[in-house]
């Protein structure tokens, strides 16, 4: 047993952190967020150069074949800097292509992802489905050798800035995956609370060829669930980076902000509060280690599911405690857009609800626990 990153993992995490520290500080991020595109192609290109976009993709596609643990340090750095580029969206969709795609699909798409030339999004969630992954009403019907897709997807992260979408749809045989050009769908684009680009996607009689089907016709649910668990593990790691920033900056504020002639950190009522934040952060880090370790290398699906659910419950709780307390202990300043901590608050708030909120994972964990080993 050991909890250290390998030398390679550490090196990559360090260089990503260094790059973000220089080119993606809070002021730089503000400009990126305020730009019409809402993300930075230059940043994306640099991440690709550093090998980050290729990290979790297979070697035969030019990637590095990395797993969730290899991504942990990178995601932490992203959480610290509040990166808004569509990394998670692209990686989730690319992994689906890597795992389910034909040789032709993999060759056509993955090398461009590795090179940073292709951004993807995974369009799965639908209005009313909540966190139930099986709730897919978007339909795919055979049409002239290809397929015709009809339906709506909600809050698709990265959709407005992706070139292609991986879309889940129900055929006669069950839930299946399709690769669809962004240009073929209608997107209501907006920003999310945490300043990422997202959109509601409408597929209105969208015709795609037979080669758009990703993996078998029907039976895609287990793959989707595995993929969402992988995404959950990544946001757990990202959350740890964001939490660390929130805790550090709050601690710093307590040491420097003076009221009643003394630093407010001298008030014991506040000291215990930051201690609890610190404990929550450490507990979250432990669970992020568990999540990334089990996301793609668990002994069984059940083991993976339980680990991810346990981690997501704990991370959601810590996100909530740390985000709320960091704002509260900053007083009025914590409420303003001017301080980064309020943006970290927003990201942590969203992570708590992404890939299933605490209640969803409590239910999943309890059900699996009840089944016995």
């Amino acid at each position, binding site marked *: 047993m050991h909890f250290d990153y390998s030398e390679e993992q550490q090196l990559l995490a360090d260089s990503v952190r260094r790059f973000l520290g220089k080119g993606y500080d809070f002021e730089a991020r503000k400009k990126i967020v305020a730009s019409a595109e809402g993300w930075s192609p230059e940043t994306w290109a640099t991440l690709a150069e550093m090998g980050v976009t290729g990290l979790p993709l297979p070697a035969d596609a030019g990637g590095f074949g990395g797993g969730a643990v290899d991504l942990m340090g990178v995601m932490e750095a992203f959480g610290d800097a509040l990166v808004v580029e569509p990394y998670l969206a692209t990686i989730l969709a690319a992994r689906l292509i890597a795992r389910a795609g034909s040789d032709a699909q993999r060759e056509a798409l993955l090398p461009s992802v590795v090179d940073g030339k292709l951004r993807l999004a995974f369009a799965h969630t639908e209005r009313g489905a909540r966190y139930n992954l099986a709730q897919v009403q978007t339909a795919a019907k055979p049409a002239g050798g290809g397929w015709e897709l009809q339906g709506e997807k909600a809050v698709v992260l990265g959709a407005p800035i992706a070139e292609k979408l991986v879309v889940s749809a129900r055929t006669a045989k069950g839930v299946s995956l399709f690769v669809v050009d962004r240009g073929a769908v209608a997107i209501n684009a907006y920003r999310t609370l945490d300043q990422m680009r997202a959109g509601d996607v409408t597929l209105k009689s969208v015709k795609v060829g037979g080669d758009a089907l990703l993996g078998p016709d029907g039976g895609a649910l287990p793959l989707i669930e595995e993929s969402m668990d992988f995404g959950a593990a990544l946001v757990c790691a990202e959350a740890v980076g964001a939490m660390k920033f929130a805790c550090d900056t709050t601690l710093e504020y307590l040491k420097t902000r003076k009221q009643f002639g003394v630093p407010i950190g001298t008030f014991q009522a506040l000291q215990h509060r930051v201690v609890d934040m610190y404990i929550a952060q450490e507990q979250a880090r432990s669970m992020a280690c568990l999540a990334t370790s089990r996301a793609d290398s668990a002994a069984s699906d059940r083991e993976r599911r339980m680990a991810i659910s346990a981690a997501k419950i704990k991370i959601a709780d810590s996100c909530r405690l740390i985000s709320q307390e960091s704002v509260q202990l900053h007083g*009025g300043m914590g409420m303003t*857009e001017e301080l980064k901590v309020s943006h970290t608050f927003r990201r942590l708030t969203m992570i708590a609800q992404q890939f299933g909120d605490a209640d969803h994972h409590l239910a999943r964990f309890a059900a699996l626990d009840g089944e016995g080993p």
Partner: protein
Amino acid sequence: MDLSYSQEELAFRDEVRGWLNANLPQDLRDKVANYEELTREDLLRWHRILAKQGWVAPAWPKEWGGTGWNVVQRYLFEEELGYVGSPPLIPFGLSMCGPVLLRFGTEAQKKRFLPRIYNGDDFWCQGYSEPGSGSDLASLKTKAVREGNEYVVNGQKIWTTLGHYADWIFCLVRTDSNMSKKQEGISFLLIDMKTPGITVRPLMLMDGGNEVNETFFENVRVPAENLVYEENKGWTVAKYLLGHERMNTGRIGGSKRELAKLKEFAARQPGDDGRPLLADPRFRDKLTRVEVELMALEITNLRFLDQMRRSGQPPGADVSMLKIKGTEIQQALTELAMQAVGPLAQPFAPVAANTPFDEFTAGLAPRYCNYRKTTIYAGSNEIQRNIISKMTLGL
């Protein structure tokens, strides 16, 4: 012991409820229901409707337009205002500056300002906090120097709520820096926002809204007749006002309304298993806990009122618990509402104002963010706890 309202009190409540339902304009009602930003005109329109009915300042003495209602009736009225979902009555004139003038103002000041506050002719804001003086208000530094018949004011206020709408600001300023105690040497000044030298700069909050500002004073000349009470005795005025400010922070009517709305919403919203979220025991239990907290707060509030009605005295330090519990409940409700919509809580409405997703849903996450303010402003909940610890528990 009898926890029920009397027949007369219930009749009074029904009358108020009926009138509010008949007189609250639909467009204002909709704006409040959708958590939309209210304009100066929206706020004043509702203020003036109530003023015309004679109900805008129930607690004031009758000669100045008060209703003569007792404390229970006033409480019922406020609860109904919250419950019906009316625009808020901005407290700065009606429940802060007004009561201060009634208690400390000269006849001339009362005649000049009170009718205009009552009728909604002047919009007021509050200039207490400064960048270096929040919880430790008495350390404030904004200076006012007497020159002949004027005070010359220099300094900065921060967090001035709706300062960008305001015609007037009441300020705490330092008129003497050589006093041994920092609470001494502070004065209470009324300042016309149109006076040269005042700059209002918006401070954006994390929900993207502009409700607070920084207010800068550079050689602002204020007629000495705008001093309230005695020079260097402003802290006495402020303390009186802080007591007033904390009386209405339970916000029970508003929370009842949000709770009812959330229940109704959760009954329509499917949970993970496709059944209504309200039937999900995990969600339901959380909702029930908030509901029970609210019941306890309501009864606690009524106990305070009963005491007040009998003793004629405000309840003192213990009102802090109404602020603590009331704000915790308000925050819990916004959090549950955000959780109720699950993944759909992510879109951020202010930035995407013209995208056609459901307006109500889109407002929930920003509202959750915005409501974090409630445990910070009007005396942070930590300071409220300090008050109970010191004043009630003697620690």
